[in-house]
């Protein structure tokens, strides 16, 4: 076979060009350049076209990765886009922000020594090309349905569900408390990972497709859940989880200790040119300061890299475990280090020191104890290892928990778990309230964007089925 693929034995892995670290610090633009056409095709051609494609298996969306890699290698980008978008509502976003090293690329079978196929970059290339070439068109459903669906939350889960429902011809309304649609995509994730117009063109397309966005709209304030249920034939709760997980150590109440999301939203809003008083008064601006970020996840990475761009004097990331055991993406750590972030591994905060505002962080050294039954090693403090590092602004990036939705929505009848996530039937994704579905982080707890998209799509399927049944009953 005149095979264009299986080139991993002769072609080396090559990521798209990364901008020089110094250059990157000057702005909030993305770090990676785009593949050129040949580069994408060549990298895609490294795919082994496996009989059991582990990339596909380990993709929450079940993206047909080998198939669109093949199409890309063969230069059939329009087909590739069609293939990619058939399982994913926002491939260019997943291509940018998915932790591929833990999902598809991490399971690529040529990875053993050859370094995986650069799946994410190719995915991004395919979809960006589709936008550039005008292949991405607004949705025109074959038939218009009368039934409508209200979706609470314009994040990835909500948007994915909205698109799938709209394709089937339903009337879709999205409610979000922020002034822009996109949820964490737009306010949680910094521009150097995901430039804001990338999100904007997706939400814009949905608007052009006939989806109605109700922004600055807070359930519980502007309408109750009951109001929405009255108005729509089905509701999807896709609020995400926004309550920051706290840290209980002495001095945590000092000023200049902020939660990660507040810090990131401020920065992102500034990027849009909005006026953000808390930033402008210096509270949320890292410029010229010694910054300490507590946590080792992707949010912590976003914070440290935002801080270096704001012109911090120094940026430290303090994490309990070591490099091999951190939850954040390896690639992100590498990027951060290049940009001048200092990682303080195996350290835990003991206290924040200062009078009214934080001046230093006192920490102790940690070591990894015996592995538990799952093989994970729990960290434990090393006695007498306390030391102190200077700090003008501390950012807590320790994860997120659900807000109290029944209270917030004025809907005590909505059942939630003891962790605050919405209780759903996992087959139908319906909550205890008929016609009220839930998807994304608010069901599974803080997780990845890609899982949110998957949940949104699954919920849309269930909602379609539900609406069809309702219609049949009504008829």
């Amino acid at each position, binding site marked *: *076979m*005149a*095979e264009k693929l*299986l080139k*991993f*034995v002769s072609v080396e892995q090559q990521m798209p060009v990364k901008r020089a670290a110094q250059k990157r610090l000057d702005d909030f633009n993305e770090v990676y350049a785009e593949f050129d056409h040949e580069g994408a095709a060549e990298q895609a051609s490294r795919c*082994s*076209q*496996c*009989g*059991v*494609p*582990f990339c*596909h*298996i*380990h993709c929450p969306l*079940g993206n*047909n990765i*080998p*198939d669109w890699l*093949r199409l890309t290698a*063969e230069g*059939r980008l329009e*087909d590739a886009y*069609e*293939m990619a978008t*058939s399982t994913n509502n926002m491939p260019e976003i997943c291509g940018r922000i998915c932790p591929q090293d833990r999902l598809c690329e991490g399971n690529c*079978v*040529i990875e*053993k*020594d*050859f370094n995986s196929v650069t799946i994410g970059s190719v995915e991004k290339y395919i979809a960006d090309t589709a936008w550039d070439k005008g292949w991405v068109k607004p949705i025109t*459903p*074959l*038939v218009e349905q009368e039934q409508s669906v209200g979706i609470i939350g314009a994040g990835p889960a909500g948007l994915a569900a909205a698109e799938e429902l709209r*394709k*089937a*011809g339903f009337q879709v309304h999205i409610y979000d408390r922020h002034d822009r649609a996109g949820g964490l995509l737009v306010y949680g994730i910094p521009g150097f990972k995901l430039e804001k117009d990338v999100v904007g063109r997706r939400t814009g397309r949905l608007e052009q497709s006939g989806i109605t966005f109700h922004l600055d709209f807070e359930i519980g304030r502007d309408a109750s859940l009951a109001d929405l249920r009255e108005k729509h034939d089905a509701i999807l709760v896709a609020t995400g989880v926004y309550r920051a997980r706290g840290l209980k150590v002495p001095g945590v109440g000092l000023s200049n200790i902020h939660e990660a999301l507040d810090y990131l939203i401020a920065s992102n809003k500034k990027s849009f040119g909005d006026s953000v008083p808390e930033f402008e008064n210096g509270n949320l601006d890292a410029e010229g300061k010694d910054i300490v970020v507590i946590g080792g996840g992707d949010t912590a990475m976003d914070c440290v890299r935002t801080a270096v761009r704001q012109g911090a004097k120094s940026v430290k990331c303090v994490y309990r475990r070591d490099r091999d055991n951190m939850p954040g993406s390896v690639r992100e750590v590498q990027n951060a280090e290049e940009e001048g972030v200092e990682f303080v591994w195996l350290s835990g905060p003991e206290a924040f020191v200062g009078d009214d505002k934080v001046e230093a962080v006192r920490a102790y050294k940690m070591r990894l104890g015996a592995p538990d039954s799952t093989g994970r090693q729990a960290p434990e403090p090393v006695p007498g290892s306390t030391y102190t590092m200077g700090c003008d602004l501390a950012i807590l990036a320790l994860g997120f928990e659900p807000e109290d939705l029944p209270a917030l929505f004025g809907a005590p009848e909505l059942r939630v778990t003891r962790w605050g996530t919405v209780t759903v039937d996992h087959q139908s994704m319906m909550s205890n309230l008929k016609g009220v579905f839930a998807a994304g982080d608010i069901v599974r707890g803080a997780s990845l964007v890609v899982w949110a998209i998957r949940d949104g799509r699954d919920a849309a399927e269930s909602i379609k089925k539900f609406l069809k049944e309702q219609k049949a009953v009504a008829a």
Partner: protein
Amino acid sequence: MNSFNEHVPGPIGLYNPADEHSSCGVGLVAALDGRPSREVVLRGIEALKAIWHRGAVDADGKTGDGAGILLEIPQEFFREHIKATGHEPSKGRIAVGMAFLPRVDLSAQETCRTIVETEILNFGYTIYGWRQVPVDVSVIGEKAEATRPEIEQIMIANSKGVDDETFERELYIIRRRIEAGVIASQVGDFYMCSLSSRSVIYKGLFLAEQLSIFYPDLLDDSYVSSYAIYHQRYSTNTFPQWWLAQPFRMLAHNGEINTIRGNVNWMKSHQIRMASIAFGDNSEDIKPVVPKGASDSAALDAVFEVMVRSGRDAPMVKTMLVPEAWSNKTSMPQAHRDMYAYTNSVMEPWDGPAALAATDGRWIIAGLDRNGLRPMRYTVTNDGFLIVGSESGMVVVDEEDVREKGALGPGQMVALDLHEGRFYHGNEIKDKLSAAQPFGEWVTDLSSIEELPDYKGEELASYKGDDLRRRQIAAGLSHEDLELILQPQVMTAKEAIGSMGDDTPLAVLSAQYRNLSHYFRQNFSQVTNPPIDSLREHRVMSLKTRFGNFANVLDEGHTQAGALVLDSPVLSNREWQALVKHFDDAAEVIDCTFEVSGGASALRDALNRIRREAEDAVREGRGHLFLTDQNISSERAPVPMILATGGLHTHLIENGLRTFTSLNVRSAECLDPHYFAVLIGAGATTVNAYLAQDAIADRQAKGLFGDFNFTECIVRACEAIDQGLLKILSKMGISVISSYRGGNNFEALGLSRALVAEFFPGMPTKISGIGLAGIQQKVLEQHGKAFFDGTCSLPIGGLYRYRRGSEVHAHDGQLIHLLQSAVGSDNYAKYLTYSRGLHNLPPVNLRDLLDFRRAEEGVPLEGVESITQLRKRFITPGMSLGALSKEAHETLAIAMNRIGAKSVSGEGGEDKSRYTPYENGDNANSPIKQVASGRFGVTAEYLNACEELEIKVAQGAKPGEGGQLPGFKVTDMIAKLRHSTPGVTLISPPPHHDIYSIEDLAQLIYDLKQINPRAKVCVKLVSSAGIGTIAAGVAKAHADVILISGHNGGTGASPQTSIKYAGTPWEIGLAEVNQVLTLNGLRHRVTLRTDGGIRTGRDVVIAAMLGAEEFGVGTASLVAMGCIMVRQCHSNTCPVGICTQDEALRKKFDGSAEKVVNLFSFIAEETREILAELGVKRLEDIIGRTELLHQVSRGADHLDDLDLNPLLVQVGGRGQKHICTMEERNPVPDTLDAQMIDDAQAVFSKGEKMQLTYSVQNTLRAIGTRFSSEITRTFGMTGLKPDHVTVRLRGAAGQSLGAFAVQGLKLEVAGDANDYVGKGLSGGTIVVRPSNRASFNSQDNTIIGNTVLYGATSGKLFAAGKAGERFAVRNSGATVVVEGCGANGCEYMTGGTAVILGGVGDNFGAGMTGGMAFIYDADGSFEEHVNNESVLVSRLDSAYWEEALLKHIEEHVAETHSRWGMTIMLNWEAKRSQFWQVVPKEMINRLEHPISDKAENIPLSA
């Protein structure tokens, strides 16, 4: 007619009597002057005594499979008898009827006599009376005696005084009426062996040599005849059936008719017109021409007879039924071509291995099939006899008396006219026949499709965009189909290739939409007949498709001017349209769609309508039917075209209309060659895959086919399908599409019995399955997806490679990791999670529908036999070093040796260093050595370094096909082991060229048991319908182990449709083999082994209950070593270093023997746990105990039935053991070597040189083989100097002379030798020359048989005379000089030198990739015979090579005293310019010396 059936079990369990095969030895003796003599009879009897080894003996040790002789009626003998009873015989010939009558039931016997007499008298003839034929029952076995009929002769006077021809024809009608009468009166046990005024048949169930003892008539000195046709049968079954002994009325047949199903079907249609022309008022009496239940040979005989009785003579009938391959032979004279063109247009060829000896009373003929797959040697003596037989030497003739010795070539015939006393050689008889009629006039002006006015211009596409997409969805096509199947068809003009077998559910178990072709499994040849090599031997094959045949087989004289002939049944859109327009008023287009809202019987109604419309059209004279499913819409769904075609073809056949029409089919689903084959097999004349073509148009427009324009793309796609069709035909041994058409040469897997009976009669369907209602439901579901789902995107697929939400794959991603983690960490709990995970998948295999009947009380686990005991039953199946990396291959062997289990070497040899344990104690020597069709590295040494030899007859991934190791995988190491050249592609032929028939397999087993006197012999078969009877034959051939492989296994590359659609699950095959062996009383003689997807203890226990004693675990053991099912084995890019020869990739291998050992320990432990639950202590106690299994699911709701009961039937009594009880291997008789070894003690004890001398006969086979084993074991394969021991032999040596002979042994034969001389020659020297007293010219006569030097690796052969067919096939190192050879010489040769001092047959040097050949070409015909696809032919142009050639000829002359060789040398200057030098193209630049002394004459590169 076959009234002995009551002794044969009818279909029981999976056994079906229709599956039986038989084969044998055959021959004739005749007086050249046509004068009857005693000598002829005596020589016939003598010949039968010399072919016992070609037959077989029943389990009772005495009952033979049958033998018989057909003789002229000795008029005097019977006249005397009549006189003795007091009558005076009248003038004219006495007719004699030889009858088998019921013996015990006297009233039935009387009924038969009454019927016989009544019919004779009704025709106006008178009866002399009955004669009880004397018999001596002392020589027959128990079974034969129990079923022995009363044997009597009835003698009839030609009282009407009609001429002989009329008398014979009326006797034929009388016999047919008698047969009908007996059937009508419901009497069993009656059979009329012969009823004729010319010939009589003595036959029965005894061994050949006992014929004349059983029938003392034959010893009577007054018993004379001018001819004797004799036959020794070897049947795969042992149910005694006296009537099935041969000869039949007119012929004796050695071989098998592969096209039998199609032939018999078409005969139903032919006979209607034919009978009325030839038999007028009696036409109803002779129908059906082929009686129900007739074997292939009996059917051929029946048709042969009716053609003769219709006025054709025997030579013409042979030409019509079993023609020579002609359409690709440019060298054939025009008159012969015209004759074959005519016969081809009246009758579909009866194809298959066939050596025929036949007579019509006046003519005696002997002939071969088009491929020359059976041996037929003949001798003409100076004292006036013609002696023909499967072997030379069956009738001992002093060489002084020999006028001529010859061998028949492919399609050839010799004939003797007894009236004229004239003998005709092959070309003489063809000249005579072709001149007898103006065939040329009858077949002129056949037109081709290119001449039609509407053919011109570009190819056409019909549907585009969303319309196309929607139609594709409705047809169940996917993205995968287009990318993985369709794309390569265009790009490579070949079928797509895949790897690692099939792990998806059987269609009947799948929840997905699977088109109907998925339920059809292709037939393939194994053991009883060979597949054809569609790549290297395509000259004998043809896809030519005719529109407008002669209306019946007796039609002569009507001209066929303008009849249309296509090169292939595969039509493009343009061709379809051109045909519809061309036939115009004669064409009827029939819509094959049905209304979506048509209710429950919509599909059935549509099928009825199609039949009705078609029948009306044909009766109104529209002779070309065009069926299409194009007319779909949101309201109309497609009728599966396979159903429409099968239903219509069957309907037209039954009504005698099929030969009046063509049946052209257009199908949306049709995409791969398999689908085409199913349609043609169901009866389609032509097939057009219009939607596939439209998809190609769409892709071509997108630029996916490079620079090919649309028309070129279609030509390439059609070429790919043509090649695929040829391959599908060839794998079941069929050469010509017209004999395949309408034959339903498939096995249904999961089709309802009722559906098959109606639409595809005759096709086996063992487990039933989906019926019309289910099909309608699935079609409508799929139709709904296309027309009622909002999205219009093609599904991703997932049938070949896993995709989420699509087809299940047993090798699930998570489970692969789980298993690897379990064996890597020695964690049994994890293994159990894996095993449970597998079990919880939706059903994939038949066994997933079965469960155990657990015992009330188990036994404690400690009481169950140990892991160590159980592990000995495990095998890692043959995976060749070449496919696998050295590391992976050795790891398996080491692991298996550590646990006392067995690994199979696979094809391709093993390095000698592995034969002794390594320093660390690891033993990498595979205990089982494989012998496959390529015979790579199969030397005497290799064969002696093992405990067991496995003959791989077929492999699960692609039964009936050859293999290929691409050049880039042939590293230095691989090349050394395989005796070939690095970088040069190696090909294994589809058949073993020494197994074309069951008695050939017996011979190979015999040879192997000689070369290794201790090893057991295993025969590897692939599960398919009828495998049980094949296995019985294999058991009777003295195999010790039979391996039943499932369809789903296999590493390495195979065509995708072979992986998916050939072979059946082992569950069915294993159960059938166990049942049939038990029925035959053969089960205790063989060990049964199975493989194909066995992964867990549960699989092992189920296999045991179905009859297996040993278990092969292939893919799972690869997974344990790190295989992650990338399924790119054919690409040499295996990322885990298992299936690759690439240095860098091999470094990535991180498998270990420990991991493999862990896997087998886990499987054994799980097996123990199940045994404990079942309350059984030893695995042995559940083998064959199907009562411990029960079906727990009948499959999905839409199926008619899914009935696994046939698998679970117990054919023996309860409690009967189903295990092999042989302590040692099954013994085979000694040959001359026993004496030789005895006589040569001084060689082995003291290393002395010796010379031995013996007289030999053809019954002494494999001379020198056992002796070579002794040499190898004592001195090593090269331990003695050449010619250390010389053995002189006088006479005709039996088959396999000098097989695997090693250095130090020299065999010199004065006389001749049979097939397989020097098979696997491993360094020995063989010389065969005529005796000193012979007066004939050696170069004009045949001295050695077929398939000489097959797989030879080194050594020398000199033969002063011609060799038979397939000379030096797969020779990889021997040097040979002969004086001529038959067809397919030097095929697949990869090394060594062949010097041929005379003419060669067709297709010389096909697939030759190494070595060199020199041919002396006196008549300048060589260039017509050579197949120069892979070789370069040039004149001698290098002093070096000329010198080398001369040396070979000198040595030949010195060894054989050949006068011909001497003549050439003496006239060298004149003769040298008539030599050709043949060198493989790939070798040109690799030779140690260039082929020309002038640099400019050397081609740059291949």
